């Protein structure tokens, strides 16, 4: 009985489902029909595109075409991929999974790839961030050239052909808006120009994910077209073609009407294709070349004319500063004879500066690297964090929270992982390149952790809390 009843209700449910599906299909068909009719009406009404940029005849550069766009695209495909990966790695370097370190607690699933940031190799963060900043600047001219090459498509007429095309155009907002947003915020941030009404970390991270979504879908949809474009002309022959022999790209009969990048009414060229590519490449080299010295160091530092800290580190024994003692209102009372370092572990103790100096001192050579791109290697002397942990009665801590005298700011404290605390190169440093730490570099004592981002090397350390194993 129960079985028969179930069968009957199952049949009824199936019938209902079929009816629903049929009505949904009919609904969809009706909607599609309406959309088609609206598009037809729009096309008839439009007939001729409105004046200005919507008329294809206004776009006249003979260099625009699928080949040129594809060449710029393949450069960006490689470059922006590296930029995204180095950026995401740089985010991982802040160890956001450790409690207290996460500046973007809403990231949720976007944390999926995070891992405990290693202390070895000590140059990893330095190279990663140097590449991120330098490559970003180098790609600025390529991004502008790529946008120039496809800009006529923004004004394509009719603006809407199908639902597929509407969605694709919406995805371009994520791509173009994303790339411009990321470049703008990144380039302003390295110059300490904080005009944006949001936190840089939050916006640059989430903006990156919006961009990545737009970038991946754009590559997925356009990759075959890019390959076709690259095959349409020989790069080697283009590089040998002077202005005199430069003409527009061939019209592709397979290209749908109005989708071509090549102008319908090209004017005579004023520059060859190789000339344009050389100009874009030259601009990249100029922009990157005038900052890269800040990441390479040594004599190259003198060439970093536009590196925001470039020439400030050329004096011997000097490192760039990212937060001055004056800006946090540090006074002699804070760091004079009254200074105490508090260690919290299995027991709590306080040390004066002299007591710190009396502990076993180690010397390490470690780079300090800033999120803004500059990095410098230096000699540091100080006490191992592992020794301090032992002193506090916690030889194998789960990590440590390092607090600064600094009262406000995003990085007045940092949480270190177990690996960072126990690394033999991690020091509470008291000298820099053989000199007592200058106030601006964290007098009386600061941490220096191999491979950590600059701001996780806390200056003016007042307290270290070693965390219990859970």
């Amino acid at each position, binding site marked *: 009985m129960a079985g028969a009843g179930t069968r009957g209700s199952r049949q009824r449910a199936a019938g209902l489902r079929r009816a629903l599906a049929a009505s949904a299909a009919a609904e969809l068909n009706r909607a599609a029909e309406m959309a088609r009719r609206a598009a037809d009406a729009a096309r008839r009404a439009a007939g001729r595109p409105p004046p200005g940029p919507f008329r294809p005849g206004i776009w006249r550069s003979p260099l625009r075409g699928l080949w040129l766009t594809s060449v710029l695209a393949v450069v960006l495909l490689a470059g922006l991929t590296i930029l995204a990966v180095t950026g995401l790695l740089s985010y991982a370097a802040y160890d956001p999974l450790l409690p207290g370190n996460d500046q973007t607690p809403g990231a949720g699933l*976007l944390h999926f790839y995070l891992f405990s940031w290693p202390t070895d190799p000590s140059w990893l963060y330095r190279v990663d961030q140097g590449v991120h900043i330098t490559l970003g600047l180098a790609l600025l001219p390529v991004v502008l050239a790529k946008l120039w090459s496809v800009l006529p498509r923004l004004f394509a007429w009719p603006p809407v052909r199908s639902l597929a095309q509407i969605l694709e155009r919406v995805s371009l907002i994520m791509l173009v808006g994303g790339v*411009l947003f990321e470049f703008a915020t990144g380039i302003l941030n390295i110059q300490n120009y904080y005009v*944006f009404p*949001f936190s840089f970390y939050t916006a640059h991270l989430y903006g990156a994910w919006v961009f990545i979504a737009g970038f991946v879908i754009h590559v997925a949809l356009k990759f075959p077209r890019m390959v076709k474009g690259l095959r349409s002309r020989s790069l080697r022959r283009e590089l040998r073609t002077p202005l005199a022999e430069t003409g527009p790209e061939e019209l592709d009969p397979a290209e749908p009407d109005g989708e071509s990048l090549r102008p319908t009414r090209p004017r005579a060229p004023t520059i060859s294709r190789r000339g344009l590519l050389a100009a874009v490449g030259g601009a990249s080299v100029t922009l990157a070349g005038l900052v890269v010295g800040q990441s390479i160091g040594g004599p190259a530092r003198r060439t970093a004319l536009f590196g925001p800290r470039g020439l400030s580190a050329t004096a011997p024994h000097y490192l760039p500063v990212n937060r001055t003692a004056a800006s946090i209102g540090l006074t002699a009372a804070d760091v004079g004879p009254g200074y105490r370092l508090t260690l919290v572990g299995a027991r709590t103790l306080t040390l004066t500066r002299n007591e710190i100096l009396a502990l076993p001192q180690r010397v390490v050579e470690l780079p300090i690297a800033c999120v803004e791109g500059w990095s410098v290697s230096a000699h540091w002397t100080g006490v191992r964090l592992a020794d301090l942990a032992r002193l506090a009665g916690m030889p194998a801590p789960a990590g440590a929270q390092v607090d600064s005298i600094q009262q406000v700011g995003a990085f007045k404290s940092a949480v270190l992982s177990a690996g960072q605390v126990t690394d033999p190169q991690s020091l509470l440093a008291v000298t820099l390149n053989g000199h007592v730490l200058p106030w601006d570099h964290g007098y009386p004592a600061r941490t220096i952790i191999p491979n950590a981002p600059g701001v996780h090397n806390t200056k003016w350390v007042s307290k270290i809390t070693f965390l219990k194993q859970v």
Partner: protein
Amino acid sequence: MRGVTTRGRSITSRIRHWYGANPLHLLALLAAFALAGYAVRAVIAAGQFRGFAIWFTVAIIGHDLLLFPLYSLADLSVQRLLPGRGRRSQASPSQASPPGPGQVPGPPAINYVRIPVAFSLLLLLAFFPLILGLSGPEYHRASGLTTQPYLWRWLAVTGVMLAASAVIYALAWRRAATRARKRQAAAAAARTRAQQQPAAHDPAPSPTALRPGFDAWSPARPAHGPDSPGPHGHP
């Protein structure tokens, strides 16, 4: 089996008809929107959506409707103002005034002007907060330095680039002049030979042929060569 395939195909083609592309296209786009939407959700949760959205929009409008028209207009104006090929190449070759005797046509100056200027403006675009001292207070608080040197560095780099471009232009001009002189001499020699043997008539090369070939392609001229535009190229 067959029934399923036909039905599958008909569903696919119905979606294609209704949507305008392969269903996979729709699926991939929806996945991308989901990822972007997830990131935007986090921006909203952080309470920073307004500024984020405004900057996102302004970035697009600022580039597409402000920066692009501005630099296009500047480029067209420079082409118009500069004496030389920028404009002349649009006229038919017969309208171009032939160079006078002893006057040697140089290569077009346009790229020797606009490329260093573009490089300089690009540096300004990237580093205007430092160059114009806009980030001065924050920059000083962070680094203890002043933004003062950047304006001078930018002016110096601009000067060096313009000077280098001028030198390269002068060299290109000299090379073109040498080539043109050689050709003129060869043509004159050919004329003398032709006068000595009146039977063979050899017309002097046209003035445009003397120019080092900057007008080889012009939309006003009949199509030639493999690069010639098709019938659609000429409205």
